[in-house]
């Protein structure tokens, strides 16, 4: 499936076959309208108890990424994230599949508040945002 210029279309047509690990896991998540890079697909939530088993949501954030790292390192990432996160048992950000617009070399989602931008927001407010010129585009 590709257009005349060779770019894969990735149109979400019915009957398309994807491999969950290959085509979803660890892909870049991009917000459709703004083109903002919104994280990696750190894990995928499956709905196995429904009549037809489907993919329910894409998970992103340290709570999704940490458990996939091996042994001590994985536990370290998870425990540091637990400690820094305000919630009792922090969960990864879940992007319900209804928000997924397109899947090609990246996963395109419609614009939405993705919530947990913890580190980025904190750094913006306490550090980067305070440096003159932080709000300007480069000339």
């Amino acid at each position: 499936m590709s257009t005349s210029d060779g770019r894969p279309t990735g149109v979400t047509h019915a009957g398309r076959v994807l491999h969950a690990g290959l085509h979803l896991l660890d892909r870049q998540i991009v917000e459709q309208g703004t083109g903002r890079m919104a994280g990696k697909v750190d894990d995928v939530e499956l709905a196995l108890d429904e009549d037809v088993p489907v993919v329910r949501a894409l998970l992103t954030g340290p709570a999704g990424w940490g458990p996939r790292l091996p042994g001590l390192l994985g536990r370290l990432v998870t425990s540091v994230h637990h400690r820094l996160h305000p919630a009792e048992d922090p969960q990864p950000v879940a992007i319900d599949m209804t928000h997924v617009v397109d899947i090609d070399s990246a996963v395109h989602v419609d614009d939405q508040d993705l919530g947990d931008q913890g580190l980025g927001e904190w750094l913006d407010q306490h550090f980067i945002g305070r440096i003159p010129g932080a709000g300007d585009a480069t000339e």
Partner: protein
Amino acid sequence: MRLSELLGREVRDADNEYVGTVADLVLVQDGPLRGPYAASLRISGLILVERRHVRLLGYERDVLPVAFRWLLKRLAGRISYVPWEAVDLDEASVTLSVRTADLVEHDPAYRRRTS
């Protein structure tokens, strides 16, 4: 359940014999309509590899270079496809309702399969 919990898991057949490990999950976009964009991704089956700790790197499909495909096939052993209906999943194990001998080879030309 999360995908990462499933990948790499050991799989046993109807006779409780070791078959291999879960290499990937095949999705077909013909599930019930959810949301404004498209049909949901239905889980249609598993791709199994005979050996443990092998990443197929996408070479379960028919892609080049030939040297890589050959090498990964050697590392992975038999690559087979099991329809979801034949998979019985519980907390820690994956069991199949078929025997190893009845497994079908995974079709590398994945784009053409519609099941």
